């Protein structure tokens, strides 16, 4: 059984600072890392591999080249990896990302299970999984918090707002995964060392038979602005003797009328 894991590289959110004049995020120089949800996806793929005979292939597209993310995938249980890097990916909308992923998945071929996060750590739009399923004409099961392979089917518990649904679909299938599905293990030093010797391939747009013109049509959503909301917090830090700090805090809260006496 072949499992394809789609992994997104994201900017390290913890390191972004705000430009105080424009209120925009300062993104230059911020490292690109694997998203948090991807760790759950890889953990799940690895768990399946431990129970069934399976090969896990990591797939990542991005710009600059997502080699850090690919290495992380290989350290977290993927057997081999495919990446695509192109400047056009930087501004591609979800339909475009899904198109590229779907083409690459088709080229990988012979897939039984395609796993993605339910939404990326940065944008969390939740669009790419359903779109990939749509393009490939495969069943889609989203928001998985339990996943089991039973013969030629997946049985999945989906977490929705008001209920849990147990759903079944025949392989091949696209599944999006929630963070609740597992607790990703931390790769051992050996895992990390082995990762760099696992096979990696780098494909171009030509390799997946997709033209730049076709992808240009997927710049369908234009960003007008991206700003931090006005922040009017006081940022007062009390560092006195604890009793005094607590009193100062309470005095201020009462003064602001947020605590009823």
């Amino acid at each position, binding site marked *: 059984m072949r499992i394809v894991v789609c992994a997104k590289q994201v900017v390290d959110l913890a390191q972004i600072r705000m430009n105080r004049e424009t209120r925009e995020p300062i993104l230059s120089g911020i490292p690109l890392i694997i998203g948090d949800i991807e760790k759950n996806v890889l953990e799940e793929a690895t768990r399946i591999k431990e129970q069934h005979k399976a090969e896990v292939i990591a797939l990542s597209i991005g710009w600059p080249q997502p080699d850090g993310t690919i290495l992380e995938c290989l350290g977290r249980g993927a057997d081999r990896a495919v990446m695509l890097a192109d400047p056009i990916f930087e501004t591609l909308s979800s339909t475009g990302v899904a198109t590229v992923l779907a083409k690459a998945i088709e080229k990988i071929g012979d897939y039984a299970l395609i796993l993605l996060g339910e939404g990326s750590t940065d944008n969390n739009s939740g669009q790419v999984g359903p779109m990939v399923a749509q393009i490939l004409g495969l069943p889609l099961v989203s928001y998985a918090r339990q996943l089991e392979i039973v013969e030629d089917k997946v049985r999945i518990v989906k977490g929705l707002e008001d209920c849990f649904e147990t759903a079944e679909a025949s392989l091949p299938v696209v599944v999006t995964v929630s963070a609740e599905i597992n607790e990703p293990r931390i790769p051992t030093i050996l895992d990390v060392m082995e990762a760099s010797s696992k096979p990696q391939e780098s494909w171009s747009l030509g390799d997946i038979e997709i033209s730049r013109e076709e992808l240009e049509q997927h710049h369908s959503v234009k960003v007008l602005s991206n*700003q931090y909301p006005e922040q009017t917090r006081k940022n007062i830090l009390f560092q006195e003797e604890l009793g005094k700090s607590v009193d100062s805090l309470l005095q201020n809260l009462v003064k602001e009328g947020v605590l009823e006496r």
Partner: protein
Amino acid sequence: MPGVLVFSEKDEFALDLLPKSAALAKQLEMELNVAILGPAAKSRATQYFARGASKAYISENELFTEFDAKVQSQALFEIAEVSQAEIMLLVSTKRGKEIASSLAQMLGAGCITNALDIKVEDSKLVASRYGLGGTTIVSEYIETPKKVIAVIPQTFETIEVKSSDGQVIDVDLKLDKPEVKVIERKERKRESVDIEKTDVLICVGLGLKQKEDLGLIQELANAVGGEIGCSRDLASSLGWLSEDRIVGMSGKRCKPKVVFSIGISGQSQHVAGIVGAKTIAAINNDKNAPIFRVADYGILADLYEAVPLLTKRLHNMLKS
């Protein structure tokens, strides 16, 4: 006439979205139509007309008895065609996002999910949503002729309804059988608490060393008449509190008068859930914890010392 098509798998959410959609349709000189799928679709149409819909495209096809995102998006794709819809306004529930994404792919449309607001600017439909893990607001518009936007549920003001007529159009849909079979559905156990409604929210995070110590937090909550919320880890990974209490991007977004943030580092994912609070007070023993940068007041201290003291002072203060 080109139209705006409104749909949600839950009537209540679609109805909430209608007044705003009506205003947008008017500005764009488009017709406001709705899709209603499933049992009793025809009789359900009345409430849609009362909120401004001109036409209701309905189908009571038995395939809609069980929800299936692909079946629903296929139906909307066909209805979009017959109703000449240019703008699809959906609701950004989990199911709504599945539908929006599949539909956008079928239509070759640009897609925005989790929209916080929509407005017409320079005759463009501009939507805003959270970016960068919930810390920024992204404002964007779709350039494709057809557009799909899913709005976070219950975002807009509702209006007084007035009874009004509309046209019901029963659509003959060509649908494929669902590929995914639902075997079981279990309602989520809901706690009676609704942390989105409290005036005082006590948020607790991984600074807490063990589940038993939640008692300290409960005492503080009792003293101040507040409810307990938590970071995602405390509920999802550790299971110390129910998932109904998760505050953040993937949990509840709360707007209390005051938040006491206890032992929470302040990752952007969590902070997105408290930015609406009037005042934020944080207790943390790490001077560099990001929570202090978004707080009005901070106390640099061990929560195990600070919380009991705070509880005691609150008791005295609120008693006097």
